[in-house]
């Protein structure tokens, strides 16, 4: 029997360790365009202690380790570029605590965002979390470690801003806790202790987050989405700024796509509103649609498309089926809102150059501080040529982001290299030192954020 496999079985159990071809095949893939690379072993632990032992083993044997959550980043972040042990974290899926008065939840790293949504709706209906636009299988920890956003990012910022505390297993096997829990004061705040934010945005190269305390937010009794449309992309930044200025919305998104054809070239806004009473909802609707957007309707520049009660949760995976191809990937970026028109136009050109129907989306983060802008490229999984086309479009878009003065969000390896080239030398050196200190044998998700 393989010595490493035997050790992993000893740590976890027989059923949740594999080096068989089927598991190595499935775990070699990202869902996007990244080239597959197989791990040597797949393991699905159940406890932090098991993860500690796996990392100690990997560190002593100098075997690469790749942590995997929902596997939905679409950026190839959990492709085992150099083989090794892939750790599927989804069995660690307990919601450990919801503190209703303190408005936070403590979760294991495999809890999916859908699971938390359902749990809160059933047990704590006055609280909610900022739901990512990802499918329900996306894990909360996976979302915060890539600095994800959600449907409450306009009022509350990045989902990683909602972190109250973390439990992390370091590459050398030590367990650390951050935030108020580090001094035994519970999981209720991430501040004001010294900043050791070493695990968010690092793509699993500095440790494995095993527990998360995340802020919850008020869930209003009535929620719904209204839509508004303009035909001039130049109007989008000022409209977004006016909408954010009202501070009445939960989520503000502008988007445009080539499909359906009648909507091509139009810029549609979806604005989520929430209220505890009809009176509150009426006030917010009046402020948004009449007082803020009414002038565009009167000038003939825009149209109100109606308000629908209930949250129409995006089923982003439908994007993969636009051309019955089963695949899509997008470049996400954090951009100044003023760049929306150029993001749209340049992205559309890239799409058209590669023969891919364009889809662009901008979501406000904070009250006008920025937006997550995404360019989506569908491909046919059965047609390698379309995968190559999409990959080229993605790489061109990575460059576009930087040319337009933005930052690539959850960059894949290509985007990481672009960013590393532009990194402030002092910052790059510091990142290298941190990496050397935490991961002396370079076992954690190698290939990612290689600043040396």
């Amino acid at each position: 029997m393989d010595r490493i496999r035997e050790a992993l079985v000893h740590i976890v159990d027989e059923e949740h360790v594999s080096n068989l071809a089927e598991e190595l095949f499935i775990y070699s893939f990202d869902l996007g365009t990244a080239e597959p690379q197989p791990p040597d072993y797949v393991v699905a632990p159940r406890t932090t202690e098991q993860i500690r032992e796996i990392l100690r083993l990997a560190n002593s044997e100098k075997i690469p380790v790749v942590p995997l959550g929902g596997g939905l980043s679409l950026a190839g972040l959990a492709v085992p570029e150099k083989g090794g042990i892939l750790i599927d974290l989804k069995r660690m899926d307990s919601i450990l605590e919801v503190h209703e008065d303190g408005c936070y939840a403590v979760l294991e790293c495999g809890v999916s965002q859908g699971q938390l949504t359902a749990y809160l709706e059933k047990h704590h209906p006055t609280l909610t979390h900022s739901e990512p636009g990802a499918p329900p299988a996306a894990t909360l920890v996976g979302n915060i470690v890539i600095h994800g956003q959600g449907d409450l990012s306009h009022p509350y910022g990045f989902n990683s801003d909602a972190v109250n505390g973390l439990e992390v297993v370091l590459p050398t096997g030590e367990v650390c806790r951050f935030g108020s829990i580090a001094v035994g004061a519970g999981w209720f705040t991430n501040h004001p202790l010294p900043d050791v934010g070493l695990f968010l945005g690092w793509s699993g190269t500095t440790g494995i987050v095993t527990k998360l305390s995340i802020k919850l937010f008020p869930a209003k009794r009535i929620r719904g989405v209204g839509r508004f449309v303009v035909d001039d992309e130049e109007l989008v930044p000022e409209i977004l700024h006016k909408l954010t200025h009202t501070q009445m919305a939960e989520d503000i998104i502008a988007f445009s796509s080539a499909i359906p054809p009648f909507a091509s070239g139009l810029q549609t806004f979806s604005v989520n509103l929430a209220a505890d009473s009809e009176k509150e909802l009426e006030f917010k609707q009046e402020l948004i649609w009449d007082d803020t957007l009414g002038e565009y309707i009167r000038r003939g520049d825009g149209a109100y498309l109606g308000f629908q009660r209930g949250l129409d949760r995006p089923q982003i995976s439908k994007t993969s089926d636009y051309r019955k191809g089963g695949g899509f990937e997008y470049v996400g970026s954090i951009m100044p809102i003023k760049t929306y028109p150029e993001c749209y136009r340049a992205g559309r050109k890239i799409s058209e150059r590669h023969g891919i129907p364009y889809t662009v989306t901008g979501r406000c983060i904070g009250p006008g501080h920025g937006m997550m802008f995404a360019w989506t490229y569908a491909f046919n999984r059965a047609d390698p040529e379309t995968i190559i086309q999409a990959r080229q479009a993605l790489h061109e878009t990575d460059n576009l982001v930087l040319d337009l003065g933005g930052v690539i969000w959850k960059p894949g390896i290509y985007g990481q290299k672009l960013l590393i080239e532009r990194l402030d030398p002092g910052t790059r050196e510091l990142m290298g030192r941190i990496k050397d200190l935490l991961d002396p044998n370079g076992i954690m998700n190698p290939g990612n954020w290689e600043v040396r």
Partner: protein
Amino acid sequence: MEKNGFAYSDIIHRCFRCGYCKFPVNWSDVNNCPPYARFRMESYSCGGRLWLTRAWLEDRLPWSEHFADILYSCTTCKNCVVKCPLRFNVDIINMVVAARGEMVERGKVPAGVKIFLQNVELHGNPYGSAKSNRDKWAEGLELEPYRGQEFLLYIGCTGSYDTRAQLAARALAVVLGRAGVSFGVLGADENCDGNEVHNLGEMGLYEMLAEENIAAFRKLGVRKVITLSPHAFNVMKNRYPENGADFEVFHYTRILNDLIAAGKLDMSREFSASVTYHDPCFLGRWNDEYEAPREILKALPGAQLVEMDKVRDSAVCCGGGGGNFCINLLGGSESSPARRRVREAEQTGAGVLAVACPKCLIMLEDAVKAEGLEERLIVRDVAEIIISLSRPA
């Protein structure tokens, strides 16, 4: 790309592996796909199974016993079909069954599957018991053979041979008799319905069973069939017409519900218990019958129907579908679907877990024992509950 004309080569690449297929409708956990819940490896998820199948069909992955186990661990419960948001969702199970057909063509199926199919071929049932034993379930009941009565009561393999399921079959026959329903049975002449054979991918054997059953029913002049099992109900209602069947098929819960509504069943005794109901996949998701069993349970004098969190099209499969009540690729763990399901039932506080399927009955009763819940939860077929209320005429 195609192997022996796999009919879904132009579709199978469309699975994105987004994972909706793992969830119930309210997203409360990822345990609604039985094999994924059991093993918690992506290879056992619906999407993983489709990606592996495509790779095998395209010669990018060799056949292996492990892959065969993964393919056959699917219980064909249809949770994926209902939850997948993409337009090809209606063909997910069809793709699994077609891939199994490819394996059957090559004679490379798991040992348990081979035995299952051999037994059906040789004995007309998956258990390997003699055909002559098929009527043992009815011993002492003095049921009439079918000779033109209004209904044929079709029991199926599990109700005929499994000693626990036989009790449900007997209960149903007695209840129908007490209600004055005109029916007959086939006794030892009854044959396997073929639902599982079809879903295991043995299309030749399935066609033979379907054609033989249809011919036998036609010869006897059968116009209406009552089935004990939702599996038999499904195949006779939805597949047999493709082979020329023109008789009506009813699952027994629809018949009992109508009898109760017509006042033809004695419901005078109290059934003072809290009851929860498990939706069988082949009655619920496959045939959209959620109401009749619940109407029956609501009509029980003194009973209280309490629902589990995951019901109707979000009900968790017992793990017995796709022949796994016999082949058992999902057993042996507290993560086995049936054990998960009885824990969910126990959480309702109900004392009785009602089922309307002989396969669910045996799977869940075994799980109650494995979980040590015998003192708190009993599993009863709906027909068994009804017979406990009524008095002999």
